[in-house]
């Protein structure tokens, strides 16, 4: 047998095994799109651009999942919500945390913490969970970002 043939066969097998992750031929459980790549790029080239790109990838995963009638993969809604929260769009963040809770009720404990944190951000004087405030390394978050322009009516 030619080495080239073996190489082709092995590559094919390796790809199949890596892609399937198991021996059976079940339909894919999730659509992840470009998730790993774009997440890696936010680490390799940190900055608003790579983060905006990654947000777009996360939005796409949510859309595509809907279209293909698949559950959104674990953590994707939450991660997008977290990015919104870092940009102080807490309304959208809470929406997404709730969506994650809906899809995966086992995530409720963590989602409730994140929701509470986002809700608390709008009222800087009333912060029972203040010790969970994020000091993120992401460049666009300024230290004083918690102060909201709009006040929520009590």
């Amino acid at each position, binding site marked *: 047998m030619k080495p080239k043939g073996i190489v082709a066969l092995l590559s094919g097998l390796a790809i199949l095994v890596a892609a399937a992750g198991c021996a059976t031929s079940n339909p894919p*459980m999730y659509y992840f799109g470009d998730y790993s790549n774009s997440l890696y790029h936010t680490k390799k080239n940190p900055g608003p651009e790579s983060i905006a790109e990654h947000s777009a990838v996360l939005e796409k995963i949510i859309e595509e999942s809907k279209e293909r009638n698949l559950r959104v993969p*674990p953590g994707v809604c939450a991660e997008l919500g977290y990015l919104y929260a870092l940009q102080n769009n807490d309304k959208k963040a809470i929406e997404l945390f709730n969506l994650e809770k809906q899809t995966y009720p086992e995530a409720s404990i963590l989602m409730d913490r994140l929701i509470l944190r986002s809700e608390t951000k709008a009222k800087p004087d009333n912060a029972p969970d203040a010790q969970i405030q994020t000091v993120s390394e992401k460049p666009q978050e300024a230290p004083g970002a918690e102060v909201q322009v709009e006040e929520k009516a009590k």
Partner: protein
Amino acid sequence: MKRIAKGRYFGFIFWGLVLISFYSGCAAPSATTKGEKFPLMYQETPLTILVLPPINQSTAADAKEYYATTVQEVIAYWGYYVFPYEITADILKMEGIYDAELLLNMPLAKFREYFGADAVLFTTIKKWDLQYLIFASTLTVSIEAELKSTKTDQTLWKYGGTTVVDLSGGQNSGGGLAGLIAKAIVTAATTAMADYVPYARQTNYRALSTLPYGAYHPNFMTDQSMQFHDRSPQASGK
């Protein structure tokens, strides 16, 4: 006189190495099954997994990021709910937990309480070795992973995987000096710009390949008899 293209020769050697690395390991790998080796997994059936920041024992500073950005996807496909790594890593950082090594012998109940995690995944990146030779580069990635219960602190699952990837210019680069030069250029280019994300993902797949399926997977609780060669560094199941 017949000239064998150097490309093919190297290709054959490196695929040979891949085969060898796949089958080698500890002295005499014995066949075992998921059910035999990891009975606690089937007793406890954890659903939610918290992935801790990896312990990087390799010489590559990037290795941690490559691992961290590919593991969530792989565990999700195995049928578990995995907490969003970016969020939990940030929270842990704020609590001063930069290094999972500190947690190895600590009680894990607080992760259950704070996150709702049934189990915590410890990972050690043993190797992330890029060897660059003019005509052939290889990337060797070696990962060990351990899943511990937050209820009992016991190890539910433990395994490891090594992937050797040939990054050289490919097997089809013709013969003669021109072919060698072309191959050297391609090797340099692919090594410099290589996108290692797929290789990291592949290594995670291999390391996780013996993990019993989680509740979201169609084969949940039916994979106890799946066989594998036990190449893990230490016996687990404690």
